[in-house]
């Protein structure tokens, strides 16, 4: 864990209530998520890293409460205090050659960095992204630029397959040796249930410290209690009790 200062170089609306935040500062950042101090709020906001390079971080977040609303109103040049090096992320090495990435809504964001890493390792990457409606769609073009196959589902059928991500997966008739998923719990549960190959899921929980010492975000797993912020947020399918 490290505490650093980053300045906002971009903070723009890219879909309904959804913002792309680009931060500059520090060196190469480790970890799965960052914990951002929003002035005026007691606790930090844990947000997944969508993409990174040395000195630059991209985050895609949704306004879900007062804290993220305040963050969305911050102008370019504002300096934020950020904890980095947090969380255990996806394991690209767990996939041998063909990966399926399944994102629901904003769950697409952390899968992007994973997709880049998998492609850098020469693996085949199929991505399925699910959204409620067309105006919530994010990241599809970015994934199309780097992945082998990208499919989209929307609940209202306005774009791609009408229905859930599971409907899109069922219609693809391909085999994968490993899957990675991030999104609403009901979706991840359905994905873990329908796919026979091993895989992992990124969970979300209300966090306190974000660094594994307050034990606010613990979940029960087959291996006993685990902290979502420190032992996760990514857990193997077979560890999860749901």
């Amino acid at each position: 864990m490290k505490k650093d200062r980053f300045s906002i170089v971009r903070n723009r609306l890219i879909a309904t209530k959804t913002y792309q935040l680009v931060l500059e500062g520090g060196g190469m950042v480790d970890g799965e998520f960052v914990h951002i101090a929003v002035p005026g709020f007691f606790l930090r906001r844990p947000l997944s890293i969508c993409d990174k390079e040395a000195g630059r971080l991209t985050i895609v977040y949704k306004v879900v409460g007062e804290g993220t609303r305040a963050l969305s109103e911050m102008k370019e040049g504002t300096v934020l205090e950020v904890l980095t090096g947090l969380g255990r992320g996806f394991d690209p090495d767990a996939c041998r050659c063909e990966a399926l990435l399944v994102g629901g809504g904003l769950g697409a964001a952390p899968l992007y960095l994973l997709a880049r890493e998998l492609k850098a390792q020469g693996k085949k990457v199929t991505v399925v992204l699910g959204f409620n409606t067309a105006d919530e769609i994010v990241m599809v073009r970015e994934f199309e630029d780097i992945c082998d196959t990208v499919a989209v589902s929307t609940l209202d059928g306005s774009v791609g397959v009408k229905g859930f991500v599971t409907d899109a997966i069922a219609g693809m008739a391909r085999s994968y040796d490993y899957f990675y998923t991030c999104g609403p719990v009901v979706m991840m549960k359905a994905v873990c249930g329908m796919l026979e190959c091993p895989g992992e899921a990124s969970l979300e929980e209300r966090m306190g410290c974000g660094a594994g010492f307050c034990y606010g975000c613990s979940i029960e797993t087959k291996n006993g209690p685990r902290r979502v912020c420190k032992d996760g947020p990514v857990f193997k399918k077979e560890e999860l009790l749901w």
Partner: protein
Amino acid sequence: MVKDLTVDLCGIRLQNPVIPASGTFGFGLELSGAFDLNLLGGISLKGTTREARYGNPTPRIAECDGGMINSVGLQNPGIDVLVNEKVPALRRAYDGCIVANISGFSLDEYKECCAKADACEGIDIIEVNISCPNVHNGGMAFGTSAASAAEVTAAVKSVCRKPVFIKLSPNVTDIVSIARACEDAGADGLTLVNTFLGMRIDIARRKPVIANKMGGFSGRAIFPIALRMVYQVAHSCRIPVMGCGGVATARDVIEMMMAGATAVQVGAENIRNPYACPEITADLPSVMEELGINTLKEIIGTV
């Protein structure tokens, strides 16, 4: 001039008065990669019970203006893991004062756990939590009457040679009478205050934010109330007090000490800033300089 930050807690010399409060610093080693733990005057470990506990269902954290509510509910690996694994591991990385925080659901459980902590070489002080708001039929029930607080104190003292601090609840009508009862029953010191019972409602979902409905409120917002209680207790008892509640800055530490605290615990502030304790300690000398203080322990209880 070099500032003297040391304090003496029941014969134990602390290099500075700043101690992360129980439950806000895990078992210490979780933070060993973040900064040098030896910058801390002491560390109060996460509350420990006889058996391992998962705690309460999530969500068990809720944000508030100036603080937070937690209902973690004493998640811990049990006293045997504490004394056999957690403390020896922390001892290898940390030379300062280790405070074991013990909770229980019966007098027997308090006695058994405290005896094990007393026998554990790495532990310097035993802090007995009779004030956890997050567990039913235990914890706070003992801390809300003078008679039961005294009963726990006497029971624990009968099995301990090390200094015993009783951690008091602020959710009482008269904290001074409970503090005095603990002192009369043999307590070596007092820690106050634990969290205030609080609640938040998610007005969109029309449900409590916390799965357990209520939890303990802590953070900057409680500082004036905690300070008042530390002042009242320190001026009514002869045993040392560890002041706790809403401390976030070096100035707060000095204020708590002027109110009567010999050492000062930092709680919820660690959750928002894991570096809070070393930052506060680093700020102390310049604030002392500004206030004309050379020896920190000389200000204890001077107001």
